[in-house]
């Protein structure tokens, strides 16, 4: 509730600044500064012709598709670098290095390899989030309290049983927060990919706003991108996270 009031105040202040700077003092050009009323108007227009819904839906589907592949690759790479000492020593620094690379850097590659297609965007999403997931899988397993594995060993756990009955459940809370972080990387990478290509989506709608010199549309798409990110985080990842922590008495 307090947050809603704060947002309302923020929007009112924004409208006030616009009114003062653009209308009254004429300090800024109207095409360079978005206005809450204009954003709202654009929102209604883009909703009524279905553009916004289509764009959001397309982006979300693309984001999810890329993310699912990234999770699978991330888990595999994470398990491998955790399990094999050689990879831990030599390959993990490489993975860490790739992970620091901003996802937009993969765009030239992806366009050369896949053209201006959906696959190009997916490639950027996967490269942008798989390695962060791999690192978090490795860390989650490393942070398991040794007493759990020790106890299981003295009860005769085989390697396979250890993974299924101890390692996976023990690292679950940390793994979920890794997945959550991976999603935020994927969502950002998705936008980096989408603004470069022409497939219908939020990124492309944003760039269209720029091309039409429609600053309110640009702002609207930015707000939608943030909103989708927050909704996914709060309604999916945070809910799962809380449930697991509560079951273990950690929250």
């Amino acid at each position, binding site marked *: 509730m307090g947050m809603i009031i704060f947002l309302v105040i923020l929007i009112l202040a924004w409208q006030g600044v616009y009114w003062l700077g653009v209308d009254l003092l004429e300090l800024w050009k109207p095409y360079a500064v978005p206005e809450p009323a204009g954003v709202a108007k654009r929102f209604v227009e883009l909703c009524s012709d279905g553009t916004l819904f289509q764009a959001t839906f397309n982006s979300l589907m693309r984001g999810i598709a890329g993310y699912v592949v990234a999770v699978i690759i991330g888990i595999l790479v994470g398990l491998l670098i955790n399990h094999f000492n050689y990879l831990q020593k030599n390959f993990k620094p490489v993975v860490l290095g790739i992970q620091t690379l901003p996802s937009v850097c993969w765009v030239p590659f992806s366009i050369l390899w896949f053209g201006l297609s959906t696959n190009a965007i997916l490639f950027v999403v996967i490269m942008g989030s798989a390695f962060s997931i791999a690192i978090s899988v490795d860390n989650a397993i490393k942070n398991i309290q040794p007493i759990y594995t020790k*106890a299981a060993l003295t009860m005769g756990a*085989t390697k396979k049983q250890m993974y299924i009955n101890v390692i996976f459940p023990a690292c679950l809370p940390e793994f979920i927060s890794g997945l959550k972080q991976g999603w935020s990387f994927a969502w950002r990478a998705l936008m980096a990919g989408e603004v470069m290509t022409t497939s219908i989506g939020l990124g492309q709608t944003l760039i269209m706003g720029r091309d039409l010199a429609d600053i309110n549309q640009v702002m609207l798409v930015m707000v939608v991108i943030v909103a989708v990110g927050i909704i996914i985080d709060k309604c999916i990842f945070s809910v799962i996270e809380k449930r697991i922590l509560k079951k*273990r008495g950690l929250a």
Partner: protein
Amino acid sequence: MPLVIQGLNKHFDNSDKATLNEIDLEIESGEFVCIVGASGCGKSTLLNLVAGLEKPTGGKILLDGKEVTGPGADRTVMFQEHGLFPWLNVIENVKFGMKLAGVPKDEQEQKAMHYLKMVHLEDYKDYPIHQISGGMRQRTALARALTMDSKVLLMDEPFSALDKQTSNRLREELQRIWMETKKTILFITHSVEEAVYLGDRVVALSPDTGRIASIISIDIERPRHVYSPEFVELRHKIMEQVRGEAV
């Protein structure tokens, strides 16, 4: 003779002296042996070696004539920090070892309930671990260890993280359970009183040399009472004997 320790040495790389030096010890079937010593005397190292969690630098450990090379269900450990799994409830924790061993489900249930009753936790079987007390967690860990039917049960200061009252209560129950089940137990403790109370024999380790300082048989009838004159006298005598070696 199920457990035989022969000329066992353990020398850690980062230490200038041996933690364990030429340890020879034989434990009979159904015997309760307590290892006592001050912190740093290597008593937990000895237990880890028997458990197979660490490798000796010399000598060997034989279980029923077979050399110990790694951890296994025939030497289950009960740890100081219970080692229960927080994602499982009480009875699921108790069944864990049986599940690994592929024991049929109804037998798991029956055996888990049998031992939960033995440690007075049958009413708490569905509780999550974080909702039961420290003492109850150790009871759960004890029940879990008992279900394993290990040849030797290893206990690494299982009661020392608990408050005095709970710890005393649990050792009384362990005495009763041991009298009922006659399991072979190797029990590590820093408390001479606990060792004299529980053990058929008390093995005192010397922290300076890493050797066995003395082995004392405790011939007091069970159930023992810490305030009986013979207990007080023997405890006092052993404290004198192991002074300097164990506190």
